[in-house]
């Protein structure tokens, strides 16, 4: 191969527009005749809708129309699940607008269309909504009592139990020399994107064409949902992906608004735009994470893990959303993480509550599983008086055991295995990076009024969800080449990465790949999008296939023009050469070939986190002295952006570890309804973070050898920080059992420890 763009830390082509303020996000697009939508949302967590009167609102200045469920003959359509769409979930799916009942604060009740967004919002107080309040189900412990049920016909608040099984856990427990049981929980977070969501839709009645702007993540799938809901064939719906201000799993899923705004455009015949405000975003975008585990680990006296058993309970919020089951599913399948565990039995229950519904947030279920198990390993090592790092070394999966089978999940019969890697290697590298012989001496030491602690954890990250991805290459009129992809950008730098892969495959300069188009439904025949750390692996492998087909087609076309055999034709930057002659590439303008990559397996990148922190016992405040993430990603296409994913996801994880928590009161009212209440990491919070990218063990399941690598920083951050706190405060017997590690929680733990010592 002539080129080696793959593996180079290349500056991103996207940056040229973003840095100048020339990105085009959905709210930057303006159309003549636009109506602005504002959505009246329920202020009641649980209740029966008695009446909605919009007549006074229609008389307000600028108001054009108010849409409610009554405008939808046969009732509002349901938003169907995209992942794990099991029949058992059907009754728990969300209607696109509240109908008969409201089930969370933030549920859409009416859509006001007006000349300006401000006028649309002004009309809210003229809409009379009468709701008969019902007792709110505020968390899973209330939900399981079934005294108040969200879905009357179901009679239970539990929508599903995922059962994860490997070996015979009960038998292993029966004969185990040592068992530890703990109850642990994580906070409620969400993939807060800096750009709130937005949808703009236009309806061209003459052409019968519905155009949606603001599509992201999974536009092809969302087009199929909308097609079924609105009764138009997919060919009459175009989804346009604009620049996307962050994804993290939450953005780009099909939400109620993704029906309501296109419906409004068709209903009025006018272009309609809705841009979410931040308060809406906090109660309307998918929540995630709030899980509680009651877990048992069985071990030999030397720390060899024999079996894991237990239950996990997820607070699902009010409806099963498109990808809402993923976190609860993953936590059961990946509870054993990167460790060799022969027997696993986890029951993961999904509880419907009167809160904003749950979807995925980067590292769904994995962040939680990592916190649960890694916390337990440290507690077990302490009790068995063995070294916690040696215990990890003893149990980490080695290269010779790969591919390593993991637990199977029912009822989806999800059989899976890890693909490649020598997991102890990243642990040793992380210890070396942090200078373990030096920092280990500080463990538990009180220096200048602060306790020093070290957290050490290991993790696994899944990626590359199938079934398929599509790419297309085309010759432009000026002799450059355009690349079109079925996958999407959520800001991760795919335009640069795919240009690197295409330029290497075609053996041309990277500038020759003039445009990289992605996300919109018009570019390729099919696409699956950006989730599960899949874009690079799936999209990149599809680019390789497209390049092969494209080169073959060029050779064939070139052979005719050059009068030689197709095998003798080569692409030579801006021309085709063969038989001693050449013809400019621009003369083949319009020549295009698609390629696909089909895949049923997953990639598993892996790594380790080591954190050196201090805890101020007076303030309960944590400070990070040094933090190292080491991750083997199989093959790093662009080390600059891989590292960006690593550090970026780490800081999100640290947010979940110490700051972020969506709090509700017992009536289902959100208490963290602004960015002054829902705390996000700032530039001054975590200055000392380092990432090391390894690519020693390529994935055998794709031609690039790459593995999904967008979540490595976030997955292990909660476990690592909690273990570091426990280590710092080990002389006081403090064991954190929940996240976030807020100053208030740490202070409370210290008070408890003090009381215990006094007794």
């Amino acid at each position, binding site marked *: 191969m002539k080129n080696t763009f793959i593996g180079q830390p290349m*500056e991103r082509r996207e940056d040229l527009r973003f840095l100048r*303020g020339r990105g085009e996000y959905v709210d930057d697009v303006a159309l003549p005749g636009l109506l602005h939508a504002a959505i009246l949302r329920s202020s009641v967590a649980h209740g029966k809708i008695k009446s909605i009167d919009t007549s006074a609102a229609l008389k307000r200045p600028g108001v054009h129309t108010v849409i409610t469920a009554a405008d939808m003959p046969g009732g509002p359509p349901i938003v169907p699940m995209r992942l794990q769409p099991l029949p058992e979930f059907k009754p728990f799916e969300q209607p696109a607008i509240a109908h008969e009942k409201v089930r969370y604060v933030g549920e859409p009740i009416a859509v006001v269309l007006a000349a300006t967004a401000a006028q649309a919002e002004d009309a809210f107080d003229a809409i009379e909504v009468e709701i008969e309040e019902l007792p709110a189900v505020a968390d899973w412990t209330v939900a399981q009592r079934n005294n108040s049920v969200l879905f009357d016909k179901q009679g239970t608040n539990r929508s599903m139990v995922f059962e994860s099984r490997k070996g015979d856990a009960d038998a292993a427990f029966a004969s185990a020399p040592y068992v530890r049981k703990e109850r642990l929980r994580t906070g409620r977070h969400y993939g807060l994107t800096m750009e709130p969501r937005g949808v703009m839709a236009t309806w061209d009645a003459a052409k019968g064409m519905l155009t949606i702007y603001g599509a992201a993540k999974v536009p092809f799938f969302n087009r199929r949902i909308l097609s079924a809901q609105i009764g138009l064939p997919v060919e009459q719906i175009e989804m346009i992906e604009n*620049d996307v201000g962050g994804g993290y799993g939450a953005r780009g899923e099909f939400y109620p608004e993704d029906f309501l705004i296109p419906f409004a455009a068709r209903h009025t015949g006018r272009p309609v735009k809705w841009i979410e405000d931040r308060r809406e975003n906090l109660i309307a975008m998918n929540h995630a994470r709030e899980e509680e585990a009651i877990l048992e680990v069985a071990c030999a006296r030397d720390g060899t893990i024999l079996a894991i058993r237990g239950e996990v309970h997820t607070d699902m919020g009010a409806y099963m959303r498109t990808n809402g089951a993923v976190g609860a599913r993953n936590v059961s399948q990946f509870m054993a993480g990167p460790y060799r565990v022969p027997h696993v039995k986890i029951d993961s229950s999904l509880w419907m509550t009167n809160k904003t519904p749950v979807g995925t947030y980067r590292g769904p279920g994995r962040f939680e599983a990592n916190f649960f198990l890694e916390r337990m390993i440290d507690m077990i090592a302490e009790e068995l008086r063995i070294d916690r790092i040696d215990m990890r070394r003893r149990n980490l999966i080695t290269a010779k055991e790969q591919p390593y089978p993991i637990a199977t999940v029912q009822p989806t019969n999800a059989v899976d295995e890890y693909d490649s890697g020598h997991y102890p290697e990243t642990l040793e590298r992380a210890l070396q990076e942090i200078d373990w012989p030096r920092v280990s001496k500080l463990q538990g030491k009180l220096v200048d009024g602060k306790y020093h602690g070290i957290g050490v954890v290991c993790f696994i990250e899944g990626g590359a969800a199938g079934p398929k991805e599509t790419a297309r290459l085309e010759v432009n009129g000026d002799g450059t080449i355009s690349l079109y992809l079925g996958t999407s950008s959520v800001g991760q*730098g795919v335009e640069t990465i795919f240009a690197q892969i295409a330029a290497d495959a075609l053996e041309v300069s990277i500038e020759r790949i003039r445009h990289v188009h992605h996300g919109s439904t018009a570019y390729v025949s099919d696409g699956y999008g950006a989730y599960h750390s899949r874009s690079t692996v799936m999209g990149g492998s599809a680019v390789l296939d497209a390049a092969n087909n494209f080169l073959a087609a060029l050779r064939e076309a070139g052979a005719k023009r050059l009068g030689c055999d197709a095998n003798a034709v080569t692409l030579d930057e801006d021309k085709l050469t063969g038989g001693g002659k050449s013809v400019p590439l621009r003369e083949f303008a319009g020549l295009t070939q698609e390629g696909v990559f089909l895949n049923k397996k997953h990639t598993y990148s892996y790594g380790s986190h080591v954190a050196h922190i201090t805890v101020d016992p007076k303030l309960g405040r944590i400070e990070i002295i040094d933090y190292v993430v080491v991750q083997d990603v199989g093959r790093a296409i662009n080390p600059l952006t891989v590292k*960006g994913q690593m550090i970026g996801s780490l800081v999100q994880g640290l947010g979940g570890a110490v700051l972020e928590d969506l709090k509700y009161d017992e009536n289902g009212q959100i208490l963290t309804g602004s960015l002054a209440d829902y705390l996000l*990491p700032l530039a001054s919070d975590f200055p000392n*973070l380092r990432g090391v990218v390894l690519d020693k063990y390529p994935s055998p399941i794709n031609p690039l050898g790459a593995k999904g690598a967008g979540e490595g920083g976030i997955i292990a951050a909660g476990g690592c920080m909690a273990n570091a706190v426990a280590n710092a405060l080990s002389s006081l017997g403090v064991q954190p059992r929940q996240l976030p590690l807020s100053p208030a929680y740490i202070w409370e733990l210290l008070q408890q420890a003090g009381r215990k010592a006094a007794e």
Partner: protein
Amino acid sequence: MGWRMTTKFEVNGKPVSVNVEPRMTLADCLRHELRLTGTHVGCEHGVCGACTVLVDGEAVRACLMLAVQAEGAKVVTVEGLSNDADLTPLQKSFRKHHALQCGFCTPGFITTAHALLTEEPDCDADRVREVLSGNICRCTGYIGIVEAVLDARAAYKK
């Protein structure tokens, strides 16, 4: 439609006159009246800093200021800190240090960093972190942003 006021100010060196409702924020005015969409709106309550612009040289949250309050002021947005020919030294430094991913918060960081470096070209890492802590980035984890701003200091030294 409520009553409107005519307000005159300067944006990126050019005089502008807008006739807007007094309740319109400067951010909405820049974006929707003047079509300068580089200024982004992320929270509308003054926490995220995405809408930061320079008003008479000072970094200001355009979502917390009314357009009519800009009367007579000199406003500079990210577009005013950019040119067609090439990236500026600050922008080049952001690109080199991978200080942006989705790009939504980026204009606010560019304007904030520009104001800081113009006033304090010798600022240290702690000062950069302190000033940038008024802007939220959800993608990068800030490490690259701080490095980029520190690396761009040389271009601001007289």
